[in-house]
């Protein structure tokens, strides 16, 4: 049973990783606090839904459209929030809270509040020993892993990626070194939001969506980022998996109505007693701020 729980949790965590990586990147590079991150996941879900409705494209095929839309929304966020970058973090929170309200309710206006879902493409599962693995979740997980891998490759081995890491490491110094920080900000925003939207598209294969679904994902993303250590991209990855497992295991052993409480308590404890994150100092290379 435990093994089953861990496997289910890992699969879930894989998708969480996508949303938290994006958040972590934006926070690292632009020092921008995005409280509307979950709403971009929601937007991603709706984009996947619309592509299915209009062209019967499942999210496995509509991702280019979702990415394109994600870039659009990233630029919208960037335009709205640009003037608050490098300024008061408080204003960033408030602006994104405002944006979150606008996004949620605009979607509500156009799509109404019904649950939107698309039919499962496979809907079956694979049995490995005593463990069942959902095909949908597995595919989503594999895609998430591939995207995450691609993302890390990009961050590590391309010039833009290196520049992003440098800015994340020390923004002021990077500016002095002549890095085009003003150009890197929108790039980080685009990457981050596109990741969130893709996560949304993948989630769409598994869960239905409503306009208000983003708030939950927003908190999960933040919890993950904080547990992983701010700006530690690998940390975000590990803690996403951890949160996934924590959700299923505590849901089973403690009661399904308490599992959110479990990781929120964990979150507060980590914030207060180990603000550097759970994995800091475990030989992890930091892409820290």
């Amino acid at each position, binding site marked *: 049973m435990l093994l089953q729980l861990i496997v289910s949790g890992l699969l879930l965590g894989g998708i969480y990783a996508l949303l938290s990586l994006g958040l972590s990147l934006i926070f690292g590079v632009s020092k921008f*606090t995005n409280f509307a991150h979950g709403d971009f996941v929601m937007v991603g879900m709706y984009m996947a839904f619309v592509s299915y409705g209009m062209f019967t494209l499942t999210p496995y095929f509509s991702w280019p459209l979702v990415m394109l839309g994600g870039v659009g929304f990233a630029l919208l966020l960037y335009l709205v929030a640009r003037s608050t970058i490098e300024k008061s973090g408080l204003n960033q929170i408030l602006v994104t809270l405002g944006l979150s*309200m606008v996004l949620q309710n605009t979607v509500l206006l156009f799509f109404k509040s019904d649950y939107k879902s698309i039919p499962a493409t496979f809907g079956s599962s694979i049995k490995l020993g005593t463990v069942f693995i959902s095909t949908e979740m597995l595919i989503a997980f594999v895609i998430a892993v591939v995207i995450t891998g691609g993302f890390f490759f990009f961050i590590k081995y391309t010039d833009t990626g290196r520049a992003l890491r440098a800015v994340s490491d020390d923004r002021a110094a990077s500016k002095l070194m002549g890095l085009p920080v003003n150009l890197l900000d929108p790039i980080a925003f685009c990457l981050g939001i596109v990741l969130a939207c893709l996560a949304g598209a993948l989630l769409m294969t598994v869960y239905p969506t409503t306009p208000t679904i983003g708030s939950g994902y927003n*908190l999960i993303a933040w919890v993950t980022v904080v547990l992983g250590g701010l700006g530690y991209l690998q940390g975000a990855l590990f803690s996403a998996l951890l949160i996934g497992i924590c959700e299923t295991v505590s849901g089973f052993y403690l009661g399904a109505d308490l599992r959110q409480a479990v990781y929120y308590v964990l979150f507060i404890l980590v914030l207060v007693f180990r603000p550097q994150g759970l994995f800091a100092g475990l030989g992890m290379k930091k892409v820290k701020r």
Partner: protein
Amino acid sequence: MRSFLSHKKSDYFICAAVMLLLSLGLLSSNKYTLDILITTVYFCTIASAWNIMCGYTGQLSLGHGAFLGLAQYTSTLLYTKMDISPWLGMLAGGLTAMLLALLVGVLALRLKGPFFALATIALTTILEIFAVKFDGITGGSVGITIPYNPSLGNMIFKDYQPTYFLFLCLLALVLLTTIYISRSRLGSNLVAIRENDLTAASLGINVFRNQLYALMISSFFTGVVGTLYAQYVLFIDPAGSFSVIVSEKAALISIIGGAGTVFGPLIGGILLAPTEIFLRTWLGSTYQGAYLIVYGVVLIFVILTIPNGIAGTVSAYIRKCNCKTEQASGDD
């Protein structure tokens, strides 16, 4: 500029004038009008209480719902289970909220910016989950209906005027406290902390302790006004009491009105609370959620263009005028 530090006694005059004007509402007996006024004053009060902590020290709390809810549950349970008058329950509610604030403060006040905000959101959610879980005490997600037994001792009234009067008294109390704090050492310290905590500490200001005081005062008033509201609506449930939305609204109102000013939350509340009701009535039934879009856009607009809010901008304008006349006479 944020004119939180008021030096003038005129604040008391403005406060009195506002209260007098608001109390004109007591002449009405239309429950809808009174409900709008009550809702307005309720949000003014919550926003003012929120402002004491967040407007002053710049720590964004999105967890005032936790204080509000805890106080509401305290007073309601005392009343429905042990038959203790809400008048005492109100105080008890305020005090439990304050105790929670003490705990939260000790744990979370060293956090800054988004992390304090996140921790407070998480706290609110945890409390909501517990309120649902321990249904033996709290009645669970179904909530608690407060039986309608109008009497002064029960703080339940047939008409809305007495309730409105109580709300007005509370608002006045919070405003006076704010004015008092703004002239006191605490206020000066808090604003210094908001501007730069390192410098503040170097002057001898204990950052942590001052913020803790502010949080406790703020949560006390939040709790008290919450219990009064519970006695007005006669119903509480976890989703409504431990709501992040309430905190967000308090923040929104304060910031649009002018966070860190005495009258900002008041202006914000008077503008936004009735607007929300009217927008919901006009747009709500035809365009779902349209009023929230308006809200969001206004919030973004205010933050980007007049981050000091209405009161902050107006008083900066006044200051500018005064400065001009001064500069005309003086050198430099």
